[in-house]
Structures are given as C-alpha cells and as structure tokens.
C-alpha cells in the first residue's frame, strides 16, 4: 500500500537519513590519519580576498610622472627563440593537498601541492592616476599606460622581458624591467606594483610584433628546478588568479604574455 508522505513520517525519515549520514562520515574519519584533500580554487579565492582585497591604490604625484617604460628599450640584448609556458584558462582537476591544507585560505605555505599568483593591470590616465583595474585577459589599447599589480602565495622574484617577432614564432629579446641582471623581490602575501617607482609605468605598444612577458617565480625556480606543470588562470572582473601544481622538489614559475590589441590581430 502506498503511504502518502506526512510531516510526521518525513521527520522520521530525515532523522534516519541524518543518522546514516553521521555514521558514514564517522567511519572514514575514525580510520584515516591524513588531511582530506580540498578543492583548490575556493581556498585560493579566499586567500586572494584576504591578501589582495585591501591593497591600497598607488599614490602617484602627477607632477613627477616623467619616466616611461616602453616595449622598446632593450636594444642590443641577445635574441632567444621562445615558446610561452602553458597558461590554461580554467580550473585544475587535482585537489589541494599537503601541509595544513585546512588553513590554506588564511596562510598558504610551500608544503602545499599548489602555489598561486594574483595579477591585474592598473590602467592609468594621462596624469598617471589609476583609473581602472583589469584582469590579464582584458584588452590593452595601443598607447595605454599601465602598471602590473602582483601578489604571490610564495616569496617571489619578478621581471618583465620583451618579446618580438610573429606571434607563433616569438623571440625573447631582453629584460626591460628592472634593469637586466636584477629582479624585483616580493615577499609571500605582499603586493607589489611594477614598476616599483610610483612615477614609472609601462606603455602598450602599437607595434603588433612587440609584446611583453611577465615572469614571477620562486628564487630557486631555475632550469629543471622550476615546475613543469601548466598554470591555470581564472579571470575575475578586477584581476586574474593563477594556480600551478608543484611537484615535490620543484618550485613555482609563472609566465604571462602581455600584448596590446594590435598584437593579437
């Protein structure tokens, strides 16, 4: 006989379900001694919200804006064939595991299997005042002035190189910021605006054969010590989040090609 569901037997059924659920949870917890893996994207988004959300806008004195870093001031540097490190638009499949995984959103550490990076464009007006924050997937128009705001989960060094040549056969033709042989050092969880000098900025080139390459890596991520895993990028309204899987014994190394609208045509 079919019995219609009433509030009374609904409650009983619910209670039974809760008991079954509780015992299902209790059993594995009682037998396992390792931290459960967690989805990496929500944890990193929380971390970004904590560490990036409160970064102040750079203060620029319009009367001092005089130094401009363009695409073209690396003349004479050796030219090396270059294929960008993979940056995949989307989310990784593997979960976040490792040391203190439950606290990752508050305090990311090098014992986790992922490291992360947040980058955005600070687009400036003619006086050098920030007028817009953009994710890295947004278009830069030729002539636009901008800075790069960078926050990493790890202690990092950052630099900007120049890329030249046709899109599918690019060449790396020297570091344009900071001066060759020097990098900008950024502590874990701290935000840096590149160029560091408040009165400097980059200008998007109108030349379709010229692009920039932002590199943010752990100081030990050189050669075979750099993670060979792809970076996953997610673009938000005001910035981009990157995550990279770090195999044991390797260190994070992120790269992002920066092109003006002209270079993508």
């Amino acid at each position: 006989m079919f019995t219609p569901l009433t509030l009374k037997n609904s409650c009983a059924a619910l209670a039974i379900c809760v008991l079954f659920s509780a015992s299902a949870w209790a059993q594995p917890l009682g037998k396992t001694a390792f931290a459960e893996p967690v989805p990496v994207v929500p944890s990193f988004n929380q971390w970004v919200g904590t560490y990036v959300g409160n970064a102040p806008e750079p203060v620029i004195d319009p009367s001092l804006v005089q130094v401009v870093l363009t695409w073209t001031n690396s003349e004479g540097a050796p030219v090396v064939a270059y294929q960008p490190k993979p940056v995949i638009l989307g989310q990784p499949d593997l979960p976040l595991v490792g040391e203190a995984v439950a606290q990752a959103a508050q305090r990311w550490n090098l014992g986790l299997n992922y490291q992360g990076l947040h980058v955005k464009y600070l687009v400036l007006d003619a006086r050098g005042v920030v007028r817009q924050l953009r994710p890295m997937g947004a278009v830069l128009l030729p002539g636009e002035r901008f800075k790069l705001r960078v926050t990493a989960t790890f202690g990092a060094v950052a630099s900007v190189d120049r890329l030249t040549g046709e899109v599918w056969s690019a060449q790396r033709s020297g570091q344009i910021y900071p001066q060759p042989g020097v990098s900008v050092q950024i502590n874990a969880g701290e935000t840096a605006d590149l160029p560091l000098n408040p009165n400097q900025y980059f200008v998007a080139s109108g030349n379709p054969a010229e692009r920039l390459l932002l590199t943010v890596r752990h100081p030990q991520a050189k050669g075979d010590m750099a993670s060979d895993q792809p970076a996953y990028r997610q673009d938000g309204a005001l910035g981009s989040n990157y995550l990279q899987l770090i195999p044991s014994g390797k260190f994070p190394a992120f790269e992002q090609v920066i092109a003006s609208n002209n270079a993508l045509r």
Partner: protein
Amino acid sequence: MKLHVRSLVLVAALVTAFSANAQKGAAKDIVLDSVSAPLVASAVQPAGRSDAMVVSVLLESADGILYPRSTAIPFNTGDRFRVKILASREARVSLYNTTPSGVLKPEPVWRGVLKPGQETITPRFVLDGASGGGTDQLHVVLEPAGEPSVINWLGTWVDGGRTGKDIRLDEQSTPNATYLVSNAGKGLVTTIRINHL
C-alpha cells in the same frame, strides 16, 4: 488510489532520470578519484585498480592562452593545439596519426612518460591538411602495461577492439575534457579529429 498510482509513476520517472544522470556522471567521477589518489599520501592503491585518464585538447590563441576542449569536439585545418594528459598510473603515452585516407602511421608523432599526480602537455601541433581534404585523426594512447607492440594493439582498438571481451571502456566528455576508465593495465585510447575543408 488513482492519485497514488500517478505519484508512483512520477517517482519512478524521477528515479529513472536521476539514475541515468548519475550513470552519465560516473565515468568523470571515477576518473577524477583515480587520478587524484596518488596525491593523497596515505591512500592505499588497490591492486588491479582501473586505468584512468583525463585528456584535454588545448586550443592555443595568439596571446598564448590555452583553451581546454574535449576530444569529442572536431578541430579544423590550421588550429594550433597541445594535448594535456593526466593519468592514474605511471605509463608511456603516445600520439598516433590516422591520415585522411585511413592509413594508421606506425610511428607515433609524439611520445612521453606520464607521472601519477602530474599533468603532461605535448608540444604545439598544427595540422595543415597537406595531404588533401578529409579528416586527420590523432589517437591519444595510454599504452597498456607490458604490451610488446603498441601499434598492433592500437590497430585492433581502432578497428573496433574496444568492444572485445577483454577491454571495457567508460568514456565521458564534458566541454573541457574527456574522461576515460578501463580495466587495470589494459590501456586507453581517445581520438581527436581535425577536419580539412
């Protein structure tokens, strides 16, 4: 009573729809559990665990960004792409080409080694369709353990061996990836198609 019969029919329909959806999602869930297992330190790898593999075709844009697609989506002449593979066990992986005229080339166009818990990405490929119109096929092969001739095994698979009694394959494609799972150690194959107009 009539109302009760209607309710029963409705409940049965809902249960059927739910279980169909659950089955459809099963391959992806099983594969993700399998490829994640090596990352969890104390997860015991059961003997005879299934072979599992996630394959994404990464369509490359002019600004160097890679857009993941499943192998079920056809590609076109001149598309630049890489292939990303994630597997449940250490294995050799290779890409073989069947030309538009239907010839399976014996030498792989690329070969690499998969490490559990890590992703492997091929170099950039572009197929120009120089051999004429039709469809190029790229077979992404998780090589079976202990197989002396991968090309013979692949030939059997491409000819319909996947329906053989010793190979059972579950496959599910989402817009971004293809998820495959089969008997332990038996290997896996999924095929990318590039149309030349």
